[in-house]
């Protein structure tokens, strides 16, 4: 499991609600009782949520976690991931809208390694 390297809270009033279009692959996992996971593609993102294009949208509801592999390896070998948790608030033709106020970038072990390294770097509090 990837490790958070920071969990600096960001006050909601500083967040922008503006959505930015993206096309990044994401893996999802339903949280709670339903054991469901799969993959989709983020179509837009803001500090308060994302739209995930996904095939089995009708089966997705409740709390969900997304993991997005950032297209860059730190030091040539360590993946950087965006981990976002939120709630499915709407289904549309091609996917689901997720409202989220919890997101962070995390580092993990070498991309080729079977065992992920604990790279918990720093925890700061304001």
């Amino acid at each position, binding site marked *: 499991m990837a490790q958070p390297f920071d969990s600096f809270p960001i006050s909601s009033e500083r967040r922008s609600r503006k*959505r*930015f*279009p*993206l096309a990044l692959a994401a893996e999802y996992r339903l949280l709670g009782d339903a054991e469901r996971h799969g993959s989709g593609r983020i179509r837009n993102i*803001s500090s308060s949520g994302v739209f995930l294009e996904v095939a089995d949208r009708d089966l997705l509801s409740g709390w969900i976690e997304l993991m997005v592999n950032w297209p860059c390896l730190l030091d040539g070998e360590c993946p*950087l991931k965006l981990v976002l948790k939120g709630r499915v608030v709407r289904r549309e033709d091609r996917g689901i809208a997720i409202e989220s106020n919890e997101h962070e970038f995390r580092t993990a072990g070498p991309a080729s390694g079977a065992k992920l390294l604990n790279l918990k770097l720093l925890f700061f509090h304001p």
Partner: protein
Amino acid sequence: MTAPAGSALALIVDHDLGFVMWLGEIFTELGCEAVPALHCRQAQALTKRFNLPVAILVVNPELRGAERMIKELVAEHPGVRLVLIRNAAAAPVSSAPGSGLQAVPSVIQARFTLERPSPGETISRPEWVAKVRRLLSLASGERS
């Protein structure tokens, strides 16, 4: 696509997740290695932990610790190009009261600004790709 700045590493620091991801994807598309961070402490931790060869620092100067981070990065990477993110219709960054960046010109000569989209603005990806390409071209020119 080949970036004017080659495979330079761009460290992008802003509190707005959407903007950071969006900018990072564009820098990546233009051939840069882009590393996003949501605040200065996170950016500094990543930089130190992974010895990131930061060539371009894109930062919101209103973030806590921005001035210190800039100074430290400039000291460690003297050739770094600084791009300051400013809000649409905001005062120039260098004179913004409380920005804490009045000292920046003395620590770095080459700097540029990038205006974040205003809340009502329709975002055009081609326009932003062109904008970032121009920025990289300018930064590349400054470097030579």
